[in-house]
């Protein structure tokens, strides 16, 4: 279970997040929704340690953790970026197995076996040898998911998972996230797409734009 209490963040004196609380139960999907500019992505970036929060408490299974200092801890967060940020010079399988080998010190053969299993699970069994530029948007997203899962995260976070894809792929993404949920994955999804959020979420968190000057 992930708990965040009283998270605050401002940029240049402009308050973006003012005391956000949220809880994600194990195996559930929390959707963070709201109009663009409301600070959804900033919230996600604070939780995943890409941005330093000004203040706030972060707890995972009741234990405090520092999102900025996750190099030292067990894998906590996996992140699937809006435009995926795959590594273009590495094959699909190398994208997935690089971090497990370098960071978790897994043996190459073990990492590759797990990578192939993940690809299999995500319907990409014949794509391991391809490079990102050879994939469609939906396939890139699934590679990004596999890459994040390979690090055995406790929570998988998505930034706008539907916005870089064709509209007709939206339902496919929803099915995929629900499938991962059925496997017990805890997921946190930032989206501006209400219909999509209602389809997948166990809980919704609405973020509204604060416009007061700090």
């Amino acid at each position, binding site marked *: 279970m992930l708990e965040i209490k009283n998270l605050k963040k401002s940029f240049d004196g402009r308050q973006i997040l003012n005391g956000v609380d949220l809880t994600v139960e194990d195996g559930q999907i929390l959707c963070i929704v709201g109009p663009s500019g409301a600070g959804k992505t900033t919230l996600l970036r604070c939780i*995943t*340690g*890409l941005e330093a929060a000004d203040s706030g408490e972060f707890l995972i299974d009741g234990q405090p953790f520092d999102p900025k200092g*996750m*190099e030292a801890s067990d*894998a906590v*967060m*996996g*992140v699937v*970026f809006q*435009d995926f*940020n*795959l*590594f*273009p*010079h590495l094959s699909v399988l190398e994208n997935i197995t*690089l*971090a497990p080998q*370098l*960071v978790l010190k897994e043996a190459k053969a073990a990492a590759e076996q797990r990578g192939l299993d993940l690809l299999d699970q995500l319907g990409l069994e014949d794509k391991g040898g391809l*490079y*990102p*530029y050879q994939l469609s948007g939906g396939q890139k997203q699934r590679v990004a998911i596999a*890459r*994040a899962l390979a*690090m055995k995260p406790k929570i998988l976070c998505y930034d706008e998972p539907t916005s870089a894809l064709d509209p007709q792929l939206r339902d496919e993404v929803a099915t995929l996230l629900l499938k991962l949920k059925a496997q017990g994955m805890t997921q946190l999804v930032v989206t501006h797409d209400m219909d999509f959020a209602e389809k997948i979420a166990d809980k919704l968190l609405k973020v509204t734009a604060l416009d007061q000057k700090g």
Partner: protein
Amino acid sequence: MSINYISEILPSLLNGTKLTLSLFFWTLIGSLPLGILVSIGLTSKFKPLQWILNFYVWLMRGTPLLLQLIFVFYGLPIIGVVFQRYEAALFAFILNYAAYFAEIFRGGFQSINYGQYEGARVLRLSYFQTLRKIIIPQVVKIVIPSIGNEVINLVKDSSLVYVIGLGDLLRAGNVATSRDVTLVPLLMVGVIYLILVGICTYLLKKVEQRYAYYK
């Protein structure tokens, strides 16, 4: 122009070519890694380091290489730093080319999308691992054409070492030309440079092809 004459002076030209090539290789081996390091320093957030490196690049690009050679060989001994001729040439060439390479690499680093760093970060790669496995391989692909230009320049720039009395290819040709009063040696020098640059061009194409597997 007789075949006899050509075969007579060819050994001395090839001897000069040896020096040209050795200067070429060692300059590349020294200045490419140094250029990468300097380019990383140029983008560092530590301002004093940035100032120093910017000054260095300005100095190296702002004065003729010929002048730098003279200063290293004849000037530095005044403050007690003495180099042999060949080492002086190598020192000046490495410092000079590293400055150009650093600017090329800096451009390469800046063209990498910041998302690549964040992608590596959430996978918990260290900064060093990110550079080595993610960033530098992509930078290399981007900079190969510009580096290639400098590499080809270097083949010919090496002829500047005559100024500190080193016997390279061009100097060997010059010596033969003034001794025998004929342009044939210089014509041969031109042909040898063309062959060297031809080989460089071919190798650079091969390297480019090696990186063509992704877009």
